[in-house]
């Protein structure tokens, strides 16, 4: 990926966010797709396939936004680049799939929501369509979270473990609360809110969902973030 011109801090931050958003959606699509034949029920396998198709479509539609930001991608493939470590490889169990659906999809979608009225018009257009489609992903994640929590025993314990693992990785993605480029992006109307607000929204939603099921997961502040790969 190369930039075709000098960019300010806000644009540089948006290039990083948009490129990484697409990378992670591409990886998430692959992870969902791998469970499209081995989910616990035929209905959930079909749902995994549908979500995979959505995520790959979101990735494919998001990469062109980079061109509007002055970046040329070296290839047109859906190479997932540098996704979060948690979704870089095949997920080991269904609880991991649901945790990714809940936490990774949750963080990414909350970021997308912050771009719904972006001054980067191609991003705003895509954001509105992505949000329309992500509503079903959220309902799927919530329904399966309740189902696994109510199953109790090892299913419930594994879900809690996987959510905690996903949170450690995904909550880091937006970056530090005081990132200067992010602040400038907000000032320029490229996004409406920053890392702290994104984490806060997802944490609040997860806490309400998990508390209602009596599942305890610590959703702490992330540490250690690499700017280049956002992980």
């Amino acid at each position, binding site marked *: 990926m190369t930039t075709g011109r000098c960019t300010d801090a806000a644009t540089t931050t948006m290039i990083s966010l948009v490129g990484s958003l697409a990378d992670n959606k591409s990886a998430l699509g692959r992870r969902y797709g791998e469970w499209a034949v081995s989910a616990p029920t035929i209905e959930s396998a079909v749902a995994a396939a549908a979500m*995979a*198709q*959505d*995520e*790959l*479509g*979101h990735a*494919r*539609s998001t990469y062109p936004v980079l061109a509007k930001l002055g970046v040329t991608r070296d290839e047109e493939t859906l190479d997932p680049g540098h996704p979060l470590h948690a979704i870089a490889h095949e997920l080991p169990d269904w609880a991991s799939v649901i945790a990714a659906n809940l936490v990774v999809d949750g963080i990414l979608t909350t970021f997308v929501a912050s771009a719904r009225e972006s001054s980067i018009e191609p991003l*705003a*257009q*895509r954001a*509105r*369509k*992505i949000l*329309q*489609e992500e509503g079903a992903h959220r309902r799927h994640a919530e329904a399966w979270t309740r189902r696994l929590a109510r199953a109790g025993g090892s299913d419930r314990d594994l879900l809690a473990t996987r959510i905690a693992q996903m949170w450690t990785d995904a909550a880091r993605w937006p970056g530090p609360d005081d990132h200067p480029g992010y602040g400038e992006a907000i000032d320029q109307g490229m996004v409406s809110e920053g890392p702290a607000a994104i984490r806060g929204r997802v944490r609040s939603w997860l806490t309400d969902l998990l508390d209602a099921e009596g599942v305890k997961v610590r959703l702490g502040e992330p540490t250690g973030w690499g700017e280049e790969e956002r992980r």
Partner: protein
Amino acid sequence: MALASPRAAVEARLWEALRQVEDPEIPVSVVGMGLIVSLAYDPPARAATVELTFTAMGCPAMDFIRDDVRAALEADPDVDRVEIEVVWDPVWTKDRIRAETRQRMLELGIAV
């Protein structure tokens, strides 16, 4: 070189051509499905420009639909060039399905 027809006449013909393009997954036209957001003809350039949307970002029929739309427009004697832009705003919803298409889908047993 033949003179281009008046803009409105060509555009009317192009709309009719697009009405013959079927969605590969459902036997109804892409116009009826509300996939054509806009169509414009530029007589001096002999160019047709289409804004096209899809029901879903992961629509597996995107390439087929794009190819079929292009072929339909290129078949017009007054069109030398076709530009297709995929747009996501307005967001496609079932409200974009035209009434006659909705009726046809119901006849086919497709809930809308």
